[in-house]
């Protein structure tokens, strides 16, 4: 019975892997095209030609590009992202902690933002074109239109400086207990929520409004259902696919696009890590982070695809 679904899901996963491989090629090629020589960068301007040649040999820089790519990829497949040139630290270890922090912040933001956006979308449809709808849309659009750093600083000013409820600096480390950690991310998570809310809310509203034209909505209305129940029970289940898609895009943004917010709140996440190392021209780190970000995007989009497939009763229950 579930065989067509399994086949579709397997197909999506396989496609995702192929895509990820293609992205890894692009990332590798991209960093190769960048001007500058890694050995030179490590040793500095005053290095002797012999020292440079030795280091090149040691780093394998004299091998053809495809061989270096295979080595790099082989390492990544075994959990070895190499070492950061600037600090000599193992990249996988550094990323481990930071990815955990980023995921924690993203989860906190998502847990608030996704249900809130969807409920606001449902309410906006219920009172479509009325005052409530316009108020919700207006506020959501306004919060999205403000730049993240502006929202961040406003939040710091109000909650950290004026009322002193939450810390303005969200520094956490491995030993921070959960509740303290939660308290630390309240402000950055709020800023992120305000940023992603409108997009999901508007999409939910549009997707459901589209479904509201269907004949079965009229059927529900003629059964005497309340307006909100019609939206919740009869319209929303048929609008899941587009809503999930936009939710996943925003989740991906919460993970890979939080650089500015992390910097403002001095939160030790992936974004900050990436920005630091881009500034230092630390190519192995940039490659590793780029690949992880790509993997996040691709995975979440696969999840969205699969959710859309599973939400379709025609695929779930074939004739």
């Amino acid at each position: 019975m579930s065989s067509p679904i399994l086949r579709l899901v397997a197909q999506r996963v396989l496609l995702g892997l192929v895509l990820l491989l293609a992205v890894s090629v692009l990332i590798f090629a991209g960093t190769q095209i960048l001007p500058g020589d890694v050995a030179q960068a490590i040793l500095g301007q005053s290095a002797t030609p012999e020292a440079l040649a030795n280091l090149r040999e040691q780093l394998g820089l004299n091998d053809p590009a495809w061989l270096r790519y295979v080595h790099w990829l082989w390492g990544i497949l075994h959990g070895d992202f190499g070492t950061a040139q600037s600090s000599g630290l193992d990249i996988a270890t550094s990323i481990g902690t930071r990815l955990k922090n980023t995921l924690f912040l993203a989860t906190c933001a998502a847990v608030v933002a996704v249900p809130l956006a969807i409920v606001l979308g449902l309410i906006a449809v219920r009172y479509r074109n009325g005052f409530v709808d316009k108020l919700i849309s207006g506020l959501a659009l306004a919060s999205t239109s403000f730049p993240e750093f502006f929202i961040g600083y406003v939040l710091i000013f109000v909650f950290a400086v004026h009322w002193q409820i939450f810390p303005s600096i969200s520094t956490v480390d491995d030993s921070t207990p959960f509740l303290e950690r939660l308290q630390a991310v309240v402000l950055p998570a709020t800023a992120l929520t305000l940023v992603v809310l409108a997009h999901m809310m508007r999409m939910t509203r549009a997707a459901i409004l589209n479904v509201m034209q269907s004949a079965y909505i009229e059927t529900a209305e003629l059964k005497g259902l309340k307006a909100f129940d019609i939206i919740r029970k009869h319209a929303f289940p048929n609008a899941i696919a587009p809503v999930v898609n936009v939710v996943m895009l925003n989740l991906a943004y919460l993970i890979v696009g939080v650089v500015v917010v992390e910097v403002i709140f001095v939160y030790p996440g992936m974004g900050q890590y990436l920005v630091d190392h881009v500034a230092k021209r630390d190519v192995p780190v940039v490659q590793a982070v780029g690949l992880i970000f790509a993997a996040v995007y691709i995975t979440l989009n696969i999840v969205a695809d699969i959710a859309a497939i599973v939400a379709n009763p025609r695929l779930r229950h074939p004739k």
Partner: protein
Amino acid sequence: MADKQAKTRPMADGQAGSGKLLDIRNLRIEATVYPPGEAPKTITLVHDVSLTLEKGKVLGLIGESGAGKSTIGLSSMAYGRGGVRITGGEVILNGRDIMKAGPRGVRALRGREVCYVAQSAAAAFNPAHKLIDQVVEAALLHGTANRAEAEKRAVALFKKLSLPNPETIGERYPHQVSGGQLQRVMTAMALCSEPDLIVFDEPTTALDVTTQIDVLAAIKDAIRDTHVAALYITHDLAVVAQVSDEIMVLRHGRLVEWGGTQQIIKEPRQEYTNALVSVHEIEHQEQQPGTTPFLSVKNVTAAYGGGHVKVLKNVSVDIYPAQTLAVVGESGSGKSTLARAITGLLPPEQGTVTFDGRPLANRLADRPKEDLRQLQMIYQMADVAMNPRQTVGTIIGRPLEFYFGMKGRERDKRVAELLDEIEMGKGFIDRYPAELSGGQKQRVCIARSLAAKPKLIICDEVTSALDPLVAHGILKLLLNLQQHEKVAYLFITHDLATVKSIADSIAVMYRGEVVRYGAKSKVLTPPFDAYTDLLLSSVPEMEIGWLEKAIKGRRMASAGN
């Protein structure tokens, strides 16, 4: 318009109160329309219509599209579709004016006192939920039953409506059930909360005739056994004559005539009713097939999905100059696929199509322009077959330029001639499709195909989307044009009445095969094969008691098999 007599209640009826379920008085319904480029304006859809319905009785509302049938039907649930507003009159249901009931009061009666059965059950069921959940929803909502009781009632109704596997069919999703079955499930859904009134809105119009008769019989039995009253909306008088106690004829939102079923179909008092009753009778003398057909389809087999789904199996038919071959069958029988195979849109897997003694290329792309010119098509949906941003002149002029290289004044002159031929006149040359009525649009499509001076026009359900009187005009036009232009038609339809009025020869198709083929008189004369018999006996006749007779005949036939 209607005389005084027609507007008053036709039958002797007990004074108000006792048996009266629904009493609509001086109903006026308006809508605001937004014509492009003009200020919004208010139009009146229903003018001052009154009706009454007693408990357990069935009133048929009949008329062409735009007559206000559905709008009146839905007003009994205080519902206006789209931007439609009930602006005047009273709708009294069970003794109270539901226009004054307020939102809560209206919700309490919808799905409880009045239920609705829509034309397309396929669209009216929510694809995301199981049938049983949707069937019992209203009963649970209004608290007329608990879940177990409601499900038991639903299963009993499935049984009464002769649905297969009544115990388990509710576990299915709408897409897993056929159109005819869905329509019956929808009727069960309406009956499940034991309402006093059901509004049936063209419940069998979207079905094949062979399915329609079963659904019609099921609905009629259910109405009789549950003593529910019904407003039965349809454009098909023969159908409504089977189920209604009374019939109300509507036109342009006004009452034309209201009377007992027998009176309306046998002794219509109004001219318009008379036209509706006698609409199908076009006299068309069958022509003898000539010596040689100009187009021969020989043993054609065609399939979709790379050979997986065979839709045409070994089909052979001939078409003679200036004659009409009608292809009949239910949906999915391969009628339209035959047209696609002939035109090259779907290259046949086996078999050949010969034209003027030489084989036509299988694929459309391989055919020379001259072959394309000789075979033209007209479609069911005239609106979507024309570019909405082109004028009638451009639309008809296009084949003139494309096939004959006509330009400027020569082309305009020919367009004007064609417009005359389709009885529209050159005043329409600068109009856009959106400004035309359904019948006019189809006429423009006919002119466009004629412009190519083809030998054959394939007409795919060209009258199916039109009101009977308009369809009648189109058929007459096609017959006239055939005489003048010596063009042959391949006429695809599911409507046997249309076949009788236009065909010279007939091919009956069933599941991709031609089961009966020959001259019209031969095909329509017994002895019949089983399928043709079923098809012919399923066409509703405008006669009270036809349904019972037909069902009985079918039971006997199936008992005999």
